[in-house]
């Protein structure tokens, strides 16, 4: 019987084309939006994780309390050992120490007088260790505008915005003016080997990047770190897992009576990120539901019209001895076939579009560079992302909506008296 029905569907294009088309289009849209949203959110999570939060990070309770002030006097001590412990305990993450520090950058002229001066936020990253993935995840090679990456502790990269503002050229040296972790006034000379642009809006407005060894020299922070950041090896943020990990770690390692005890934070604990995580999940669920309802209503109506056109057929089938239930079931089987065909084609199209947007991306630079807030870390180019779930996500709404739509339409068969259906044969 299924073979018989499939033959009919394939031949009667006029009857099956529009439902298939509706399913195809909506499924393609679901797949594409899902891919696009996933891409944007994942890149947003990753950008945020790379620049500030990690997927998880460990710091002292005291540092966390005042983290806005970059209070390196409250930094983690014995970072080497802590790194080793974290790597041992959570092997599916990689861990990296970081020192974040703020101060003034002074650019001297030939006489040593100040030529330009301005505030800077510096990141001491682990650029040099073998196996460190910092250069990879910061995509520094791609984001380098001029020059080369630092090779020595005293070398630094400036964001091109900061370099332009201070009028610094490659090879020149800049003086960092600030305080050590022990609160003492300090100056330290960095030589500028290159400039970079993160293309994430205004986050890198005042940014300087150095190796953590340079930061340790400048701030007298031997074996200390502001934070130790952890990243999932796959670079995908898994909210539930990160939250569970942070809860578990804090239960075992954090001591609420000791402000210098370590504490772990998940990406969602950072400013606004929790909201983003929740938003992303809600957005996907709502989108799915809306599409489901739209497809269902459209197909319901189409099913009704089809049903009307097919009363003759239905009456004839009742006459040759199908029961109402059989006719109803065969309509459902037809709708499953139609939903399936539409979903397969739609998934193909959606994946194609998603793949295209994954490779090409949507450039938002101008809009984002105009923003002044540095709170939201967001890439200027939106990339979609092809994930495994895109291959099956369309089937749920695609087939379900077709079947539900047909069931609603098919109720008419049950409501109508058999003799009434039969009457329509006469005309």
């Amino acid at each position: 019987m299924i073979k018989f029905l499939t033959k009919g569907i394939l031949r009667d294009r006029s009857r099956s084309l529009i439902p298939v088309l509706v399913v195809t289009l909506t499924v393609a849209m679901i797949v594409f939006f899902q891919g696009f949203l996933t891409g944007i959110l994942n890149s947003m999570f990753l950008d945020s994780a790379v620049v500030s939060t990690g997927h998880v990070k460990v710091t002292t309770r005291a540092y966390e309390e005042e983290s806005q002030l970059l209070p390196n006097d409250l930094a983690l001590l014995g970072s080497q050992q802590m790194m080793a412990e974290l790597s041992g305990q959570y092997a599916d993450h990689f861990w990296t120490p970081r020192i974040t520090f703020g101060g003034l950058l002074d650019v001297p002229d030939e006489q040593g007088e100040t030529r330009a001066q301005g505030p800077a936020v510096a990141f001491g990253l682990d650029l040099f260790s073998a196996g460190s993935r910092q250069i990879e995840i910061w995509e520094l090679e791609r984001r380098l505008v001029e020059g080369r990456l630092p090779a020595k502790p005293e070398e630094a990269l400036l964001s091109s915005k900061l370099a332009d503002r201070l009028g610094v050229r490659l090879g020149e040296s800049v003086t960092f003016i600030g305080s050590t972790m022990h609160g003492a006034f300090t100056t330290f000379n960095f030589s500028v080997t290159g400039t970079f642009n993160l293309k994430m809006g205004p986050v890198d407005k005042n940014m300087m990047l150095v190796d953590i060894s340079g930061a340790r020299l400048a701030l007298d922070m031997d074996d200390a770190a502001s934070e130790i950041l952890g990243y999932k090896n796959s670079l995908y943020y898994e909210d539930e897992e990160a939250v569970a990990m942070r809860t578990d770690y804090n239960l075992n390692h954090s001591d609420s009576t000791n402000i210098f005890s370590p504490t772990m934070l998940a990406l969602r604990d950072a400013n606004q990120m929790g909201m983003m995580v929740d938003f992303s999940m809600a957005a996907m669920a709502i989108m799915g539901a809306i599409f489901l309802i739209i497809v269902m209503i459209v197909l319901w109506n189409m099913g009704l019209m089809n049903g009307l056109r097919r009363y003759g057929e239905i009456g004839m089938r009742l006459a040759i001895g199908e029961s109402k239930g059989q006719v109803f079931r065969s309509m459902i089987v037809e709708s499953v076939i139609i939903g399936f065909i539409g979903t397969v084609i739609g998934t193909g199209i959606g994946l194609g579009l998603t793949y295209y947007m994954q490779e090409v991306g949507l450039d938002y630079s101008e809009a984002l560079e105009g923003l002044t807030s540095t709170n939201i870390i967001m890439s200027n180019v939106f990339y979609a992302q092809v994930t495994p779930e895109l291959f099956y996500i369309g089937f749920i709404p695609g087939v379900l909506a077709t079947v539900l739509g047909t069931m609603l339409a098919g109720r008419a068969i049950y409501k109508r008296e058999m003799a009434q259906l039969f009457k329509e044969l006469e005309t």
Partner: protein
Amino acid sequence: MQNSAVVTINHLLKQFPVGGDYFTALKDVTLSFARGEFTGLVGPSGSGKTTLLNIIGGLDSPTEGTVDVLGKVLDNTSHGDRALLRRKHMGFIFQSYNLLPVYTVFENVELPLILNKVEEKEREKMVKEAVEWVGLTDKLNSRPAMLSGGECQRTAIARAIVHKPELILADEPTANLDAENSHHIMKIMTGLNRELSTSFIFATHDEKIMAYLRRIIHLDDGQISEDERIEHPQG
């Protein structure tokens, strides 16, 4: 099965609700059809011919009275049982042929056999046999759109007889056909009636059909006004 009657009807009353009232379509109909009969229900429009056929076919149910078809009292059977009875033992032919447009002649005729879960090999044999009866062997793979009205109706007849039913109900089977095709079809059906002893009940007001009938039941306003036997019908 008493005295080999295919259908026995006793004091049948059929009323349709119309507004708050009832419209009486059939009144005190008592009838029986023997095996192998070739009978017509004849009467003016609205006299209740189609209603009676539908009740015999189990597509509609009586308001009062009993209807016994092929040994089953229809009142006591479920929708499913009645569907089974139709599927196995009855064939229907309509004024409009009700062929499925996307299927070929072969597939249209095959459908009742698929429903009866006949095996594919056996199906092919039975379909070919039925199509041969109606003389459409050369059109097996045509779609209804490519057939003439007469050919469509012959396909519908093949569909009605393919599973060798005991009883065929035909409602105005010639109404859409010209004289030549009407005679052709009536000849096919008298042939089937003779060779396979299939019982036929027609509803009609077509003079051409009446010439072939061996029994004519006249309906008037829902009542039997005359039950006429014809000794030497044409055909």
